[in-house]
């Protein structure tokens, strides 16, 4: 026998129940109000803009070795030029597109596969659950990075598509596990049983009734996977398994490493792309924390109660 809701003012209780899916407007409001989300969102937006309009920001071509090599930082070349005379700043700006494409596509693909498999396993239970779990667990246990190396090497020159496919195949299992656990706790909710009792089919219940209630989890999964995609892709490109002719941060790092940039006095060549990766990763991570807090009010930072001077408790009637 359970209790009527009490103790919390009605409005607070209602706010806590407010759904995560009704409108981008709500997400927008939540992002603005949460400091972490704002910073992360702004950073991500900057990167997106750079990726969409690289020509506006960098006036040089990234691949043309048109300049004298090893120039230092100047207004003409914000990050100097590399060993080949290419403008470093332009390289990074144009490389953003590749990185973001990988991040978003992998994020989306991984989350989609993980949702379908993880949530179906949780909802269907029994034999379906067990068989899906076997598949998930096998992939989970295989160390990701060595597997990636094998796949990329086997694919003979990783184009961006190969990178995306390889990272997706190796990353979805972790998220599937996570989402399965979450879905298991949500499985017993009355409205799902109500849907079953009124005659809905299981596929409908999973897609329409269950998954939409997990949106904040899905957003978090997306952001995490996007983050790891950036890191894995850059790492693969760094060790030469990406296509060295693509313009990307990882490949810039690869060329920097090949030319021993740090030792030959061109530190920016190695540091700048690394810094970009770090900043983009931070943006995703901040947004991730923020969405955790948005989805679960219990995690929100509590504002310390400030007593104004002179606000002494007064004796009442």
């Amino acid at each position, binding site marked *: 026998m359970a209790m*009527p809701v*009490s103790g919390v003012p009605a409005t607070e209780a209602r706010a806590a129940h407010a759904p995560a899916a009704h409108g981008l407007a709500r997400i927008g409001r939540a992002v603005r109000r949460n400091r972490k989300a704002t910073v992360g969102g702004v950073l991500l937006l900057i990167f997106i803009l750079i990726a969409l309009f690289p020509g506006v920001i960098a006036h040089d071509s990234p691949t043309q070795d048109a300049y004298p090599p090893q120039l230092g930082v100047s207004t003409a070349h914000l990050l100097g030029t590399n060993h080949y005379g290419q403008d470093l700043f332009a390289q990074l700006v144009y490389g953003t597109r590749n990185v973001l494409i990988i991040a978003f596509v992998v994020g989306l693909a991984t989350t989609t596969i993980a949702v379908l498999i993880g949530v179906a396993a949780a909802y269907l239970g029994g034999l379906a659950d067990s068989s899906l779990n076997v598949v998930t667990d096998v992939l989970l246990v295989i160390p990701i990075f060595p597997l990636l190396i094998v796949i990329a090497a086997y694919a003979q020159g990783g184009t961006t598509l190969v990178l995306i496919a390889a990272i997706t195949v190796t990353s979805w299992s972790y998220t599937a596990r996570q989402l399965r656990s979450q879905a298991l706790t949500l499985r017993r909710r009355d409205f799902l049983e109500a849907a079953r009792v009124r005659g809905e089919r299981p596929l409908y219940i999973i897609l329409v009734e269950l998954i939409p209630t997990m949106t904040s989890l899905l957003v978090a999964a997306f952001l995490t996977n996007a983050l790891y995609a950036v890191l894995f892709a850059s790492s693969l490109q760094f060790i030469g398994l990406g296509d060295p002719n693509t313009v990307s941060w990882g490949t810039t790092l690869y060329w920097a490493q090949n030319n021993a940039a740090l030792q030959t006095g061109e530190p920016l060549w190695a540091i700048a792309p690394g810094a970009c990766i770090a900043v983009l990763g931070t943006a995703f991570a901040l947004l991730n924390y923020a969405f955790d807090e948005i989805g679960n009010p219990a995690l929100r930072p509590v504002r310390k109660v400030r007593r104004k001077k002179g606000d002494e408790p007064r004796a009442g009637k």
Partner: protein
Amino acid sequence: MLEVSGLSVDYILDRGNVRAVDDVSFTAGRGEFLGIVGESGCGKSTLLFAVAQLLAPPATVAAGTVTFEGTNLVGLTDEQLSAMRWRDMSLVMQSAMNALNPVKTIGAQFKDAMRAHGKFTGEEITARSAEVLKMVGIDPVHLRSYPFQLSGGMRQRSMIAMAMLFTPDLVIMDEPTSALDVVAQRSLMVQIKELQQAFGFAVIFVTHDMSLISHFSDRLLVMYAGQVAELGVTKEVFDRPLHPYTQGLLEAFPSIRGPRVPLKGIPGNPPDLSHVPSGCRFRPRCSYAIEKCAELEPDLYPMDGALVRCLRREDGSLAS
């Protein structure tokens, strides 16, 4: 022994402060059983937490004092409070399943409680633990049991036993019987009353179930929308409810005996505390409301030995 005076509790939220408890005053004397009744959202649990000094942000005491045995508890530090906690005042929570640690035995939890509030030897702890369990009718062998091995009724009883470890002067209870079935509820209430008569402590008992409290409390405080609506001797509140809300509440209980009559309940819903109605907070649901009820906010008015917050009682226009 306990005097709450003008207590107000605010929730500091982004969109402004919400006053969950508004200017509540009451006393509890030695050995007295005070019942606090109200529906969801009336602020009774918040009030309880404020009295026990267990409010967590964003809730905070905005005004008023809680004087326990001469000391004002509001504003005391945790160290000062812990000297008094459990020895002089203890708390029984709403759901034992949530309050008891599921991975520790009952005995271990009693030991924790005793160790936290004093220095005792192992034998003293075991002896006292067994003693309080016997007090509530549980075989001391269950000191070695885990909460999930006990039934709901037994879990609640062990919560009460834990509250009795130091035989405090005041025990505050937040709906301890809600998760129990009717028969277990009744026997738990009787147990509490027996303990109270044996040891003489005061009880403040918060519940939404008015009919349950009717046979056990000495005085009754009815809360509505964060305010005291009525306060008086239990029997009199039941025989002659003064506030229209209390009247409505009493009429909302179908009876097992007597004729079957259609009941109406109280139309509408309790107000959103961030947008309280002007004038009397109960006015939108009150069948006796007149014009001035929307304009003036009623104060607590002493009448026939009780206190009632109703303009029409004050001016005598509402006949009993």
